[in-house]
Every structure is written in structure tokens, then in C-alpha cells.
């Protein structure tokens, strides 16, 4: 029996994958999945371009500079002092301004911008009439900042929106889409148990969602690493948390597909209009931090958030409500979180299987 079920599950997955991967109506799912990838690739290209500019600029330095040299420049210093410490600027601009003072006649102000770099950090100095009026020292790539931005994009866009709506598109269509296409009866006329059919369809959806979103997530991570300086990249990947972070993100993505997949498969069995359950689940997930502890556990995001490898610090001055939204007030151990998502999904699938067994084909009401 198990062998027959397996053969049937494989047959259903084969049929479903073709529909899921190549359906025109699923194109927007690819766009959702690739949106953050485009963002990180664009960032990496920009960083690469800026690194090139910095390297060319550094080659024109009068003397070798260090980060400390760049950091020693402060407001109030004279042009001569700057040049004495850093040498003649490899890149400089100047312009004049007629400034009308309140007390007297208009006078000419000479503005200058000097750009220095040690090859990795950049210093922009703004001078007025030969005196430093302001400085801006920026590092080429800040590992900590980059990983927090990556975590932010993952938590607030990829997890809560891209994977959420992607799963809605994939899993709600498993049954609802076939009812609309009037083709579900072909499955129901085959000697396959309805619950086995449901599991097979779920696995097909899971495979599609996982391939699409895990691949995109892996590529996003590669794009992030590509933007790092090679030394920084090696240090992050091989001596830091790089691979652990990657594994965590990929695992969370797969778990999100498991959790949201089961939710939307069930929603497709009960509700005709996908907008309503999507809105309800989205609001429920968004309200999760504000819910009582017991209710928090009946959600997918509660478990997934606990698994995120990088915590996003609330910036000073963040409104308390928003701070609560981004914080994880009651972190739970990873095994509990993983088990939680899987158990919630199994429970939803079990209830759905009862529904599928009593499901009727009545296309005229669709």
C-alpha cells in the first residue's frame, strides 16, 4: 500500500510541478522572490564600482594613508594642516558663493571639497575659506551594518511579504485553481485516496515554494557576500557566522513555506476568495507581538522570528509600538520553534484532509 501511495504521490508531484513552475499566473511569485535579490545585486554592483573608484583614488595619494590619518581631521583645521597630514587631495572640487551677511555687504566665500581614501575608507572634507567646516568618514563595507540590513530585508520583506504572498499564490491554487479551471475531477476520478492526494499536492507546492524562495535567498546571500571585500568575506564565511547565518536563513525560508503552505492550502479548501484569508492571516501575523502569550503561539511568524540569526536593534527614538514589532520578546529555543511550525502545519493538514474527503465537484457554484 505504502509503495502505491509513494508512486501516486510522485505522479501527482510531477503533474503539479509543471503547473506551478510554468504557469503564467505564477509569474508574479518569481518577481516577489527575485525582488530582494535584485536589490542586493544592485547593492553589490554599486559597492564594487565604489571600491574601484576608491582604489583609483588611493593610487593618486601623495603618501600612504591609514584610517587613523583620515580620522585625525576635525572641524576648524586649516587647509594647510589638512594637506600637511594627508598630502594633496587626489580629488578636489571648489566653487565660489556670494554670501549676503546680515551685518554688512555681500562677500565671496570659497568652498572646497577634498576627498581622501586609504583604499577602504573614504573621507570627504568640506572647507570654507580654507578652514574645515565639516568631515564625513565612511567605511567601504561595514559587516555588522550589512548583516543587520540583510536581516531586516529578510524579516520585514522576504518573510512577511514575499514568502507569505508567494505561498498564498502557490498553495491556494492547489485545489482552488483546479476548481476554477474545472479540472479537479480528473484527480478525484483516480484510485487515489483524497488525503494522499492532498499530501501529494502539498508536497508539490512545498517543493516549488522551497526551490523558488530558498534559491532566491541563497542568491541574495551570495550577492551580499559579493559586496564584501575578499578578506572581510573570508573572515565572515570561514571564521565568523557566515555559513551558520546562511543555513539559518535557508532553514527559516523552508519552514515558512511549510507553515504558510499548510495555512493557504487549508484556506483554499474553505474560502473562495483568497483576499479574505490572506488579509486575515496577514493581520493576525502582524499583530502577533501584541497578542497574549497563548495566542502568539498560534502563528507561524512567532516561531520563525525566534529562529532569525541576526537581531535587529531598535534605533534610539523608535516608537515603542514599532520597537515591539521588531523585537522578539519571548525567544524560544530553536528545536521548539522548528517543532512548533511543523506541528501547527500537521494539525492544519489533518483538519484539511477531513475537508478534502468530503469535497464535492460542483463547478457551477465556483
Amino acid at each position, binding site marked *: 500500500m505504502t509503495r502505491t501511495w509513494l508512486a501516486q504521490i510522485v505522479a501527482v508531484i510531477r503533474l503539479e510541478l509543471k503547473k506551478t513552475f510554468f504557469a503564467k499566473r505564477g509569474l508574479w511569485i518569481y518577481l516577489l522572490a527575485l525582488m530582494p535579490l535584485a536589490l542586493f545585486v544592485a547593492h553589490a554592483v554599486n559597492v564594487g564600482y565604489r571600491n574601484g573608484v576608491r582604489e583609483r583614488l588611493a593610487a593618486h595619494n601623495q603618501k600612504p594613508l591609514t584610517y587613523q590619518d583620515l580620522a585625525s581631521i576635525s572641524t576648524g583645521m586649516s587647509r594647510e594642516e589638512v594637506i600637511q597630514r594627508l598630502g594633496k587631495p587626489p580629488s578636489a572640487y571648489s566653487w565660489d558663493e556670494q554670501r549676503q551677511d546680515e551685518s554688512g555687504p555681500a562677500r565671496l566665500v570659497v568652498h572646497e571639497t577634498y576627498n581622501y581614501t586609504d583604499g577602504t575608507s573614504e573621507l570627504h572634507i568640506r572647507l570654507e575659506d580654507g578652514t574645515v567646516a565639516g568631515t564625513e568618514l565612511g567605511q567601504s563595507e561595514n559587516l555588522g551594518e550589512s548583516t543587520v540590513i540583510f536581516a531586516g530585508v529578510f524579516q520585514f520583506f522576504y518573510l512577511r511579504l514575499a514568502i507569505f504572498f508567494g505561498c498564498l499564490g502557490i498553495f491556494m491554487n492547489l485545489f482552488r485553481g483546479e476548481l476554477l479551471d474545472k*479540472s479537479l475531477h480528473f484527480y478525484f476520478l483516480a484510485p487515489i485516496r483524497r488525503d494522499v492526494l492532498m499530501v501529494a499536492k502539498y508536497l508539490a507546492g512545498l517543493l516549488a515554494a522551497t526551490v523558488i524562495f530558498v534559491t532566491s535567498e541563497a542568491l541574495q546571500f551570495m550577492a551580499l557576500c559579493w559586496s564584501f571585500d575578499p578578506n572581510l568575506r573570508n573572515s565572515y564565511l570561514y571564521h565568523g557566522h557566515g555559513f551558520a547565518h546562511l543555513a539559518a536563513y535557508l532553514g527559516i525560508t523552508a519552514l515558512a513555506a511549510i507553515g504558510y503552505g499548510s495555512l493557504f492550502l487549508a484556506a483554499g479548501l474553505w474560502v473562495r476568495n483568497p483576499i479574505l484569508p490572506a488579509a486575515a492571516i496577514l493581520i493576525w501575523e502582524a499583530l502577533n507581538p501584541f497578542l497574549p502569550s497563548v495566542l502568539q503561539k498560534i502563528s507561524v511568524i512567532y516561531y520563525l522570528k525566534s529562529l532569525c540569526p541576526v537581531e535587529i536593534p531598535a534605533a534610539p527614538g523608535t516608537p515603542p509600538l514599532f520597537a515591539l514589532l521588531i523585537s522578539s520578546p519571548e525567544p524560544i529555543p530553536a528545536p521548539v520553534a522548528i517543532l512548533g511550525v511543523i506541528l501547527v502545519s500537521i494539525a492544519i493538514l489533518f483538519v484539511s484532509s477531513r475537508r478534502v474527503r468530503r469535497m464535492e465537484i460542483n463547478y457551477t457554484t465556483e
Partner: protein
Amino acid sequence: MSREITLDNVSKFYGEVLGVNRVNLAIPAGITSLVGPNGAGKTTLMNLMTGLVQPTRGTIRILGYSTDEPEKLFQLVGYSTQFDSFPKGLTGYQFIYLYLRLFGYDTEKADDLAWRAIERANLTEAAHRKVAGYSKGMRQRIRLAQSLAHNPRVLILDEPLNGLDPLARAEMIAMFRSLAADGCHVIISSHILHEVDIISDQVILLSNGYVVAEGQIQDVRNEIREQPAQILIRCDSQRQLASKLIESGLAIEVRMHQDGHGLLIKTADADHFYLALNQLVDGGIDIESVIPADDDVNSVYEYLIGTEGAAV
């Protein structure tokens, strides 16, 4: 394993709308036609027999199996529905082959069965074309091929001859007969009554969700006592026979057949009429043929239900 399809007090309501009501049937092997006008409940009855809809009340057993056991039921049952829609992007061959893979068959067996079914439906040349590009008749045939592909013992066909050209219709009817001769249950719905007459071993007449009659068509006709039987007699002395029939009181009504070569007689008791006819004509009149003129589905349907369904 039971040899019958049984429906025991089966009712189906769609909300407040009646699908079928209090249906009790025991369908033996052979060709059984479900006859009735649109909305009579034919498709609902077929969908109930295949588990596509659940009965509101009652039980259905197909050769002993319940309809909520698809894993067992569809090893035995093939159903060609009226739904003219197919999974997207598939060729005729893929449609049948992938359906057979759902049975758990390995690639070789599924391939073999798929080609046999396609050949039976005369679609070999079009097998690798997309079903979406098929004509209506070809789509009908590929659905038939799918329902037949796994060699079911019960074949349920909803309007299977719709859209087929005369040659294809004749081929299909021959195939149904051959399957019935092999002991299969072939259940066909149709509103084309002369076709039903030709192919059916028994009929089930439906009207407004109720079974109004079932059985062999002659038996059904004989049970309609309130309607006088019509008999066509072809003989050499039509006037003489007509007067004898009226005098003897055997016939209620006697008139010339529209072709002018026979008498169309209405009698209240057909059995008695046949017995008495031999004595009545003994020696004087040469009888060429005596044929019941109203034991076809069309007449029976008209007597039972009225003219709404007995048109074609």
C-alpha cells in the same frame, strides 16, 4: 464482490434545490441508459455513483464498494464526464499516461495502457498534439479513452456520443456492446432517445430528480396499463381486418398507418389481443407482420412524463 450497482434510498439536495430524490436502483451488468430531459438528474446520479458528489441521504455501493473509497472504487470504475475541460498544457497522450500514473502503474505499464486506449479511441495520430487544440469530437474521444484506459468493470459515460460523427458513434456503440457482452456495466446518459433504443439493455427514466421507471423497455411499457398499447399490423386485407377487430371488441381504435400499408391498432390488453388475433384471422386474412408500435423509449417516456423529454 457484488455484481450489482445499488442505490438505496439516495437523495441529493444542493441547498434547497433537488438533485435526485429517493432513488432505489439495482443496476445489473449490460448497457443501462439514464434517460431524461436536462435537469432530470442524470448527471447528478452519475456524479453520486462516482463520489464526485456525496448523497444527502442513502447509500451507494458499486460492485460492493462505497463511493468514499476512491482508492478501491476507481480500480473498477471509469467515468467520462461532461466537463469539457482538461489540465492545461497536456497532449492527448500525456493526459492519459499521467492519469494512469496516478494508479501507481510503472512507466512501462502506463505507457502500454495509454497507447491501447488511444488506439481504441482512434486518436493515435493526434496523440502528441495538445488537447487544447482538439476538436469537440476529439475531446469527447480522449475523455472516453481516459475512462477506458485502465479496463474498468464499470463504465459511466455522461452523454458519450455528443459531438461524435456518425462513424465514430457507430464505433463507440459497437465498443459499448462488446464491453457489455464481456460482463461490464456500461451506464450511459442520453437525451437522444432513438440511440438509447438501439443500444440499451435496460433504461432508467428520470424526471425532475425522480426515477419514474426502470428495467427493460418492453417490461416498462407493459406496466403502463392506463395507456392502450399500439400495434402495427401489416396484412393483405386491411379493411376486412379492421372491421373484424372493431366487431370483436379487441381494438379500441383502428386507423390506417401513415405509409398506407398497415393498420395501427390501439388495444387495452395487448396480451389478450395477441392470443385472440390468431383466431380472428384464421383462414381468411394473410398477416405479414405484427409489431408493437409504442414500446420504444420515446413512447414510454411520453406516456410517463409527457412530451418535454420525448422529442428526439
